């Protein structure tokens, strides 16, 4: 019986070549029949990072100062009807509704950006500004872009309400995805053409897994987003009928 993790001691880890084929936690060794200490502690640490990412509140001020440099006008800050994290997790319906839409400007913009904390504020803090910068750079300069909206305790569909209230043709929602054990800061971008309350997931397109350097990069995500935007404008709708040429249009239902 091995009570040591594989590869400890003098012998090289025989699993090493297999580990290059998968991120799965293979060849962990055994303590009796159980996981060895090192593997258990590593799992606990990964879980702690993922759990903290779910519950960490978004630092809105830091996000606003990052957004200020993008030249998109003064950002608007909203909250959803889910008053706290516990309510947010239990009540996806409340996370889809802004607490108030009063005072939102409406000027018939072509494109609007909504930044939502979703299930990982860490993803927003680390990747939202850079993703938005890449998106703005990739957009057709002729398009009229609304001032960005930041909303906390929010789900993707909050963008439908906001987009409609602001008279936006196509809304992009940048949102923190559910943290996994390996990645806790993955950002998703959801495109909804002609946003109105009641749109379903099948009417959106999604670019997920944005978290360079391991995940999708900002420029690549922006290129796909702009490609989808062009397609949605031509087709007159977004969603399952709109195929994105790079094959990354699948909706992830955990953030609906």
């Amino acid at each position: 019986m091995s009570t040591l993790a594989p590869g400890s001691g003098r012998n090289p880890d025989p699993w090493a070549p297999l580990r290059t084929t998968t991120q799965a936690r293979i060849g962990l060794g055994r303590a009796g029949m159980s996981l060895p200490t090192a593997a258990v502690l590593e799992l606990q640490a990964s879980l702690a990072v993922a759990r903290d990412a779910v519950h960490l509140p978004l630092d809105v001020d830091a996000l606003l100062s990052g957004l200020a440099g993008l030249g998109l006008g003064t950002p608007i800050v909203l909250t959803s009807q889910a008053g706290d994290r516990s309510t947010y997790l239990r009540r996806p319906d409340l996370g889809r509704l802004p607490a108030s839409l009063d005072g939102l400007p409406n000027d018939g913009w072509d494109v609007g950006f909504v930044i939502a904390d979703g299930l990982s504020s860490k993803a927003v803090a680390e990747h939202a500004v850079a993703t938005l910068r890449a998106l703005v750079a990739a957009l057709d300069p002729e398009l009229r872009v609304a001032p960005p909206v930041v909303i906390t305790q929010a789900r993707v569909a909050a963008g439908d309400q906001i987009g409609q209230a602001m008279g936006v043709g196509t809304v992009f929602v940048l949102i923190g995805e559910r943290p996994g054990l390996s990645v806790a800061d993955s950002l998703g971008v959801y495109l909804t053409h002609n946003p109105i309350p009641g749109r379903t997931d099948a009417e959106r397109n999604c670019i997920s897994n944005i978290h360079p350097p391991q995940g999708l990069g900002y420029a690549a995500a922006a290129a796909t987003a702009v490609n989808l935007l062009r397609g949605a404008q031509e087709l007159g709708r977004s969603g399952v009928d709109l195929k994105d040429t790079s094959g990354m249009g699948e909706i992830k239902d955990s953030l609906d």
Partner: protein
Amino acid sequence: MIATQVVNGHSYQFNSLVELLGKASPKRSGDELAGCAASCETERAAAQAALAEVDLTTFLNEAIVPYESDEVTRLILDSHSADAFEPISHLSVGGFRDWLLEIAARPDASTTLAAVAPGITPEMAAAVSKIMRNSDLIAVGKACRVVTAFRTTLGLSGRLATRLQPNHPTDDLRGVAASLLDGLLLGQGDAVVGINPAGDSPQASADLLGLLDEVRQAYDIPMQSCVLSHLSTTIGLIEAGAPVDLVFQSIGGTQGTNTSFGVDLAMLREGLAAGQSLGRGTVGNNVMYFETGQGSSLSAGANLGAGGRPVDQQTLEARAYGLAREFSPLLVNTVVGFIGPEYLYDGKQIIRAGLEDHFCGKLLGLPMGVDVCYTNHAEADFDDLDTLLTVLAAAGVNFVITVPGADDVMLGYQSLSYHDALVIRHAMGLKPAPEFEAWLKRQGIADAYGTVRGLELGASRLRALAGAAS
């Protein structure tokens, strides 16, 4: 049906069976989200007391989901056996609980319970579960025995099988093989080696099936494999001659839920016939593999019942089992913690739901397994998984899901590790399926007594299956 119940000087009225079932359900976030939960603990206690008074025959006369508009209801009521129901036909829900516990304590319990199963509707099973404590669910769950077979025999007394789940984010064959090898060396896979494909491309599924079939034949492993593609994809693969062992599909407890999954009864019958036509089983020909989970109907917007009222998620889950039993499946797996905290908020709710699902499925005559799992936004952790695995093993669960190091890198959630299954088998004296156990002994992975201790990579000829250097 209208029921009134007084608790602590306060009178509560319940205007329909649907309302009563919802309010009698142990607390869970999904019923609160759906708007069918009790408003306070006292109302819940009143509903449970009122439900205990309801006669079982009421469930044959009052459809929870309308007969006219729902083919699952039609299947449940049209296939109900009056003969099997006869021994319990005089009972109320409360009387049924006592009867079940009394039968469970007898030596011939499994025979009696199996005989009555075709007379129990899913709604009766759900109703009685709502007034049963966790220990009741264990006692009766353990007394039910549901044995199925394909290349291994599952559900026998003193056995606990596992689905080895070697998922990979890009369906990379070498990566899948590496996780498969790791699992086999730790004695996993006697229920099935089952892969959730990352995409729904028929070619990718065919490649995965080919890999699993090659490994099975090369090492003479008594196992069945499954790639969990949509039913329509699998039927196409069977027609194209791919080595399909089991036919998989996710199902729910209403016609609308199944529509959202892209299936109906007719398609399921077609899938069953296609799977059985291959005759690939050696010790049995149960070919269907179903997955379910509380909350799927609400998630699909298909959770309304009689009077347009929301039906509680546990009753709808039991109805999915009512659908499943039409197809004599090899495996039914409730993916209990996967759906998220808006349906099952924390470890307590997940553990309760896992026991309820196992009990209801077994009582209805199904070979129940459970994916003991959680997502990172639920209030749960590895200790909760350990607890749920232990109570399920005590309840005689047919199989559980296991993944390398408890971390499914494709689906992004935590299930049991291969090691967890070894520990619980050892702690509770449970063995793998007999055919698989014999193979594990031949490989030196299990000892002469059938205790699975695992084998180091360098000590096994299996290492070649993943291309590891010798």
